């Protein structure tokens, strides 16, 4: 543990208790809240360092807080490092990713950006309501605009890496059970795959979120909309992540 006076020492014992409790212990939530709230100044401090770069400050603070929550959830006190040296890069990484995701990969007219945001909101609302992904005609009816405009907006969406709406993260991570189930199934299904030994380490080396999404889609047989609800991001974002992940895997699996 660091001997420096950081002002957060009083929280250190809480991590040990947090890590020692079983998943379903009701005290965990309480400790998690305390740890997150207690370290909130760290997140806000990092968010301020990224100020004045064109992103609303409250968005940055929200993203930094998400980074903090992730850090609290993933921190392993028995590894011997102190929380801050783990949390600071995690939070900063989350904020950097936010900036990267915010960037349009090509110039898209303002009107289409607005439409894209409206479509994104409509998709998530309709998905909730319908229990499946909406059709373009349903989005158009919902937004009281022309289907043609929706089609145009969807095209613009594919030029955009990720809207802030995509990044609305829920506090609870993707339910561990389904992921574990998918992992088990992946293992069985991989038995039928020729490059099984090649595929497995590639799957394991994927970032956690990408791997979860891939497994749920291809081995858990969930639709993109179901995955979106479970992971807490938009269907469009799931779609992009899946396509990117498949492209990466394909490159790495290429015979030459």
């Amino acid at each position, binding site marked *: 543990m660091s001997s420096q006076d950081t002002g957060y020492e009083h929280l250190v014992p809480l991590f040990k208790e947090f890590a020692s409790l079983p998943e379903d212990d009701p005290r965990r939530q309480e400790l998690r809240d305390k740890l997150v709230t207690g370290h909130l100044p760290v997140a806000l401090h990092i968010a301020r360092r990224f100020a004045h770069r064109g992103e609303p400050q409250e968005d940055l603070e929200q993203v930094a807080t998400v980074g903090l929550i992730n850090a609290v959830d993933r921190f392993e006190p028995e590894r011997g490092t102190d929380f801050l040296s783990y949390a600071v890069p995690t939070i900063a990484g989350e904020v950097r990713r936010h900036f990267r995701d915010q960037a349009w990969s090509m110039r898209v007219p303002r009107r289409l950006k607005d439409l894209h945001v409206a479509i994104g909101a409509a998709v998530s609302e309709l998905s909730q309501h319908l229990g499946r*992904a909406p*059709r373009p005609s349903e989005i158009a009816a919902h937004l009281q605009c022309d289907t043609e405009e929706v089609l145009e907006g969807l095209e613009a969406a594919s030029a955009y890496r990720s809207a802030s709406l995509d990044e609305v993260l829920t506090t609870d991570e993707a339910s561990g059970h389904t992921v574990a189930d998918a992992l088990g199934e992946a293992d069985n299904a991989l038995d039928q795959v020729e490059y099984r030994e090649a595929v497995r380490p590639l799957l394991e080396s994927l970032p956690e979120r990408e791997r979860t999404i891939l497994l749920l889609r291809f081995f858990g047989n969930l639709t993109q909309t179901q995955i979106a609800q479970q992971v807490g991001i938009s269907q469009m974002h799931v779609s992009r992540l899946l396509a990117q992940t498949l492209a990466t895997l394909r490159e790495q699996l*290429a015979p030459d």
Partner: protein
Amino acid sequence: MVAPSGQQADEDSERLDSMTLIEVRIAPTPAQISAVRVVAADLAARQDYDLDAVSDLRMAVDEACATLVPLAVPGTMLSCRFLVAPATIEVLATVEAGHHVTVPQNTFGWRVLTTLIDEVQAVSSDGAGGGRPMAGIRLCLRRERAGG
């Protein structure tokens, strides 16, 4: 592929009248697949398939073309034909192969394809009828999907 007999050809052309047939031909390189992908997504969206299906078709076409690219004889084209019917979108992607070869079905890519699309079929011809050997993948996306 075998040329249809006279009567079959009539039926086919009648069948085609009520449908949209689009063919996209690209040089068989990974960089050009995006053109096929865009057409696939646009067709499905215009047929008012839900966004999951649109995205699944786009990924499946991507995967199918990427599978075929390494099999193609250099200097030939990858052809991707889309047949849009009221209840289905059929895709037939083919390349001219150097020899008689069928797309392997025990790969991760095949797993991806069969998850994304209701019907997936590897097609091939050995070029016995005078043509050249072809390898291809046929996909069929149904409007009413079996699972979710």
